[in-house]
């Protein structure tokens, strides 16, 4: 039952967006103009494409994020059973966080967290 309902919500969203866009294309005016369909650049003719290489800073943050996000995924099951397991879970999580904290500290000292 649960997975069917998820498909339902997916379909509602599809119908909502698709229906509105179809309706809009039917009623809205259409006129083609070469200058109008240029990407916006403050009114001057656009200079080259936007599909170029960009700052590596974004990439570094994405990589650090990946590590920490996987760690969050691992932590959630631990969080659920923490109450039942007790001391052993607590000691294990301290070791886990010590390793993780060292990783964060390393990235910090290496300057990966600095925006350049």
């Amino acid at each position, binding site marked *: 039952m649960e997975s069917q*309902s998820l498909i339902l919500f997916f379909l509602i969203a599809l119908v909502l967006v698709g229906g509105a*866009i179809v*309706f*809009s294309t039917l009623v809205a005016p259409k006129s083609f103009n070469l200058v109008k*369909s240029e990407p916006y650049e403050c009114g001057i003719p656009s200079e080259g494409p936007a599909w170029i290489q960009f700052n590596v800073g974004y990439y570094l943050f994405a990589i650090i994020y990946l590590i920490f996000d996987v760690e969050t995924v691992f932590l959630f099951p631990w969080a659920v059973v923490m109450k039942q397991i007790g001391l052993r879970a607590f000691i294990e999580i301290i070791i886990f966080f010590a390793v993780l904290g060292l990783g964060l500290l390393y990235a*910090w000292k290496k300057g990966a967290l600095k925006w350049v």
Partner: protein
Amino acid sequence: MSSNLYDFSTLTSSIHEWLSGFMSAGWVVFTELVLIGLLFLLFFALLGLFLVYLERKVCAIMQNRVGPNRVGKWGLLQTIADLIKLLIKELIPIRKSDKFLFNLAPFIVIIASLMAMAALPFAKGLQAIDFNIGVFYIMAVSSLGVVGILLAGWASNSKYSIIGAMRSGAQIVSYELSVGLSLMAIVIFSGSMQLSTIIESQANGWWIFKGHIPAFIAFVVFLVASTAEINRGPFDLAEAESELTAGFHTEYSGIKFAFFFLAEYINMFIVAALAATIFLGGWMPFHIGSWEGFNHIMDFVPPIVWFFLKTFFIIYIIMWFKWTFPRLRIDQLLTLEWKYLLPISLVNIVFIAFLVLMGWHF
């Protein structure tokens, strides 16, 4: 006593029985799914329109203006008029854009926010899907929206769009960590990820009160991080109008633009509803210790009213952020997350684990 009076599961089960009276089992399921679908569609659209209206009114109050007051009583129909206007505006095609991804982006943004909404508990028994991993599910699905934003920025082939999308990507993925860790704080306390179980565990007091200071720290971290995650308030770098025109949706026009706008407001509602559910007891009424008389009066307010009161209180706080704080720079934004919020929430988790281990929470 009064909690049974307001239980929606009796209503839903009676609808189920009524439908079963004259239909085969398959058709009953189908009719119920269509009913749920229509209800959510209606709620989604009305909520989006109302939140846009609310934002304009709150902004007006903060800036000592009147706000929209011409269309309908107190300007209530203003956003509906805006929607109709957006529907009949031309959808301008961008010549050098990636057509397929350009059209796909609004779909992804709306799908992510609507699917996240499916798991929200509005009142007792009034929850479309009660996952046993509810908290995790909402986090996972709502963060899919960033894919739509990145696609929108990339596909438009405009420099403003791509800068906005890249900023937004870096920002959303960074702040997601703090959101996850602060929600985890309450998962440790209640020992469950199911939203209905988390609410049940707050029957004798909300976690923000029961969890001492660590729960309060988690709440504040959640508020800040989720404001950043939904691209709002002082963290709206992705659409900083003074530098990037409109950020990732610069090239979108008409109804496609409206969907990005709608998704932003619905995401704000989801975040506020999640905060209300996890930290402020969801639809549980406000009780003070052993004041029987006071508690009894509070029980008479329906749970759904409590839910919306708490949610709109948090929405008001998030709007307050937006209209009072100046926008951060991207380096300040990333410093705030990686050098302050993330270490704070990591230490906070250890602290909470210690509290739970010692049994020092109520």
